């Protein structure tokens, strides 16, 4: 009856839930609000929801548990609202399968941008990356998604910048696939490349310096003629 995307907003705080629901409505979404996990489950069962915005800290069943439930029963995109704390970095990496998260206090515009980016990826054929606590191992290296770091053959952590990490994750989840710049930009940053964009090439060479024995003659991240890169390695999920 209407083609607006349907967002389920779950937050126990009325002072956040109500104005946020209004804001999302004004920005082109159909919004259903739920005050707790139980209500959210009812709404999920009763209507066609396209995406869930979920507060982690809630009395009763918390957001993480609900998120796991959603992930088990389907492929519904989830964005977590979380307070920044020492726990955050750890929790984000745990098995909760959220698509994205925003730190409180968040900018509603930012939230809308993230929601739109997820919808665009879904529309583009499901090139989404969940942070679901899976680690990826290839040739002695381990990409730890929780800590956003690589661990080398000697067990030494080699921290990555945000962009490097996103790129590495894109490769690790798609080993031996050729990915062109546009695809990499879309996967890692959710934006379109412009003709002069060298950002991906810079990130690739930085990543090579960190993981290749000889960055000039790469063994893992190879350049494919005709515009693209590929991770030439067998990747195991841990």
């Amino acid at each position: 009856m209407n083609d607006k995307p349907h967002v389920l907003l779950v937050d126990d705080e009325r002072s956040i839930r109500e104005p946020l629901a209004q804001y999302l409505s004004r920005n082109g979404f159909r919004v259903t609000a739920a005050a707790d996990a139980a209500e959210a489950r009812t709404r999920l069962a009763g209507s066609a929801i396209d995406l869930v915005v979920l507060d982690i800290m809630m009395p009763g069943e918390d957001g993480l548990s609900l998120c796991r439930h959603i992930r088990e029963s389907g492929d519904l995109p989830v964005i977590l609202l979380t307070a920044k704390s020492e726990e955050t970095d750890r929790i984000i990496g745990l098995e909760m399968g959220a698509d994205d998260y925003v730190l409180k206090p968040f900018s509603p515009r930012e939230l809308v941008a993230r929601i739109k980016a997820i919808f665009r990826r879904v529309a583009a054929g499901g090139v989404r990356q969940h942070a679901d606590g899976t680690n990826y191992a290839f040739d002695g290296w381990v990409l730890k998604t929780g800590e956003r770091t690589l661990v080398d053959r000697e067990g030494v952590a080699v921290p990555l910048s945000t962009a490097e990490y996103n790129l590495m994750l894109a490769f690790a989840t798609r080993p031996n696939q050729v990915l062109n710049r546009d695809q990499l930009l879309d996967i890692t940053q959710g934006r379109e490349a412009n003709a002069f964009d060298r950002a991906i090439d810079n990130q690739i060479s930085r990543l090579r310096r960190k993981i290749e024995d000889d960055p000039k003659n790469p063994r893992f991240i190879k350049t494919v003629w005709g515009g693209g890169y590929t991770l030439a390695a067998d990747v195991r999920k841990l």
Partner: protein
Amino acid sequence: MKTVRRLLPSSLAGQIILVVAIALFVAQAVNFAFLYRERERQLLAIASAPAAARIVDAIEGRDRSLDRMERISWSAAAPVIAGRRRPDIEQRAGTMLENAGLEIRSIRAVEQERPHHDRDWREGRGRFMHGFRPPRDALYLSVELASGRWVTVQTRLPRDPPRFLGWLVGQTLVLYVIVLVPLLLVGRRIARPLDDLTRSAEQFATTGAADPVMERGPGDVRRLTTAFNAMRARLLAMLTEKDRMLGAIGHDLRTPLASLRVRAESVEDEGERARMSETILEMSRMLDDILSLARAGRSMEPVQKVDLAALADAVVEDFVELGAKVDMTETARTVASVKPQLMKRALRNLIENAVKYGDRAHVELVGDTREVRIDVKDDGPGMPEDRMADMMEPFTRIEESRSRDTGGAGLGLALVRAIMMEHGGELRLSNRPEGGLCASLVLPVTAVD
């Protein structure tokens, strides 16, 4: 004086043992001095008595046989005998002769060493003759009688006393074994529980948690341990309570902030909206800093081996992505055992400061034999030397006015310092000679592999 102090033992048991050893040695030395004096008197008597007796015999004409062996000679003047005068024997023998009722005008004692060739010959034979003892030095005692005549007798001096010093050393060593070994055992019994206490207290100081100490050792040490354990339990309870409270405060303050942030979006005036969201963000950042600082030293993050060069590079790169003027000198891999999220946070704070106050940040990883540093240099005005220590205290900012236009609650450096202390390192500030501030994250080389 310093070297002496360095050589002295610093431990309780070591010091007790050293003091007892010195006291024992002094007591032994005093004892030895008395013994030595007594022995000297005896030796003197042994040396003087035979000669004095022989003089009495000679005067009384009792022993003619000795004349023939030239052991007694008479002369009108003082005989000339080569050798060493022995005034001690002269005095002692004189007293003896006077006690025997003889009147003497003067007395002279001379010790004469056996000529060497004579000795050699005798000793050579002595090897064949079983039980033959090496010859002794001769003593000539001359006495001028009341009549003016001199009588000279010859006797043998007793042999050199046995090694008295060696005997003292041996005796002292035996005493040492008897006294110091039990002392060492007692010392260890006291020292071990004290060691445990020290280790636990140190662990508590660095990590904010420690296992209770086993109660053992002597009664007073055990009471100390009990008291320490009670204090530890109380501190832990307080720290846990603090964390719980801070967590609750953090959550309860963030919710209204988040609500405010959402509502701010509906403000029509764009400039006003931007200012509001900036203020809310600022409050949220301050809240983060306060919570982090309050939790300093109690981080749950595990220590792990990290390539510091890659860590610094990753942090710098995140700034570059956002368009900040930050660069880094490329450095070879440097592995250290750290808490990577905390180290990143510390470095981010320093870079933020450098960009805010010093326009740009230049990051460099420097290592030598003592420490590894991550230097963050800027081109700003630097910092007055006398304010540097203050600046690392919480809620201190470079402008005394506490003006808000440069942002921050003055917690950044305090947090960095707390993080570095948790790593056993330090935050070091200095003004660069070419201008600008250099803030360094310093790790001891023990953290580096």
